[in-house]
């Protein structure tokens, strides 16, 4: 089990940096098509911020914010968003991930719809990647019961 770091400096600096790291990760996700970034990289940075939080605050306090079950739920949510947008295009008559067709309901031109579609997919991917990373992290670092029942 990862205990809370009893070092004041590391804990405080991590606490002060956490919001900025997460916002920077969201910036990377949102600005996928202008600067280097996008769903995957943003998700990884989000997970890095999460790991920093776990290493400094200890796994128990972070469990209140993001437990194992929540991680699994978020990962499936991310996948749902990603596939959902694709399926939506399919329903509206286009190909699987053809964002142009999204334009008709949103009454927006094709190019605009395409960028919105990509943005939606990236958000889904980032959410999924971060949640899977957290789930892996939890799987490694929470000791299992011998009889296979996961210790709460």
């Amino acid at each position, binding site marked *: 089990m990862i205990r809370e770091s009893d*070092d004041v*400096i*590391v804990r405080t*600096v991590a606490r002060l940096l956490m919001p900025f790291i997460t916002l920077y990760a969201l910036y990377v996700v949102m600005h996928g098509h202008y600067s280097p970034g996008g769903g995957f990289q943003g998700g990884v940075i989000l997970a890095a911020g999460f790991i920093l939080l776990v290493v400094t605050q200890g796994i128990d306090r972070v469990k209140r914010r993001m437990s194992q079950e929540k991680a699994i739920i978020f990962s499936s949510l991310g996948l749902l968003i990603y596939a959902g947008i694709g399926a939506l295009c399919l329903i509206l008559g286009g190909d699987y991930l053809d964002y142009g067709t999204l334009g008709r309901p949103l009454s927006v031109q094709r190019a605009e719809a395409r960028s919105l579609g990509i943005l939606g997919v990236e958000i889904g991917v980032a959410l999924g990647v971060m949640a899977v990373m957290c789930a892996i992290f939890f799987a490694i670092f929470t000791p299992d019961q011998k009889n296979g029942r996961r210790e709460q």
Partner: protein
Amino acid sequence: MVIRELIAGFFVCTGFFFFFTATVGLLRLPDFYSRLHATGKGDTLAVLFSLIGLAVYEGFSLTSVKIVLIAVFMFLAQPTATHAISRAAFRCNVKPLTTPGGPNR
């Protein structure tokens, strides 16, 4: 235009000089804690100088603001990293070298 490049060049050069002293300090100093002195301080200042030099070379735009943001982040992060490493050493009770010029430990 030339003055801006001159100032940028000057800052990057001093940054390089402090990087050089930090690396020499890292190699030459006999004791682990004194090595941390060199890298902790040397790298922080060298990064600050180089980043300010690049920001000046970049001129007044959003990217130079972002470069200054990285400088602020490094200004906060580098001492904390040095502190964390030296604390790990202290907790593993690594004794500092008390006799000057002792063996290279």
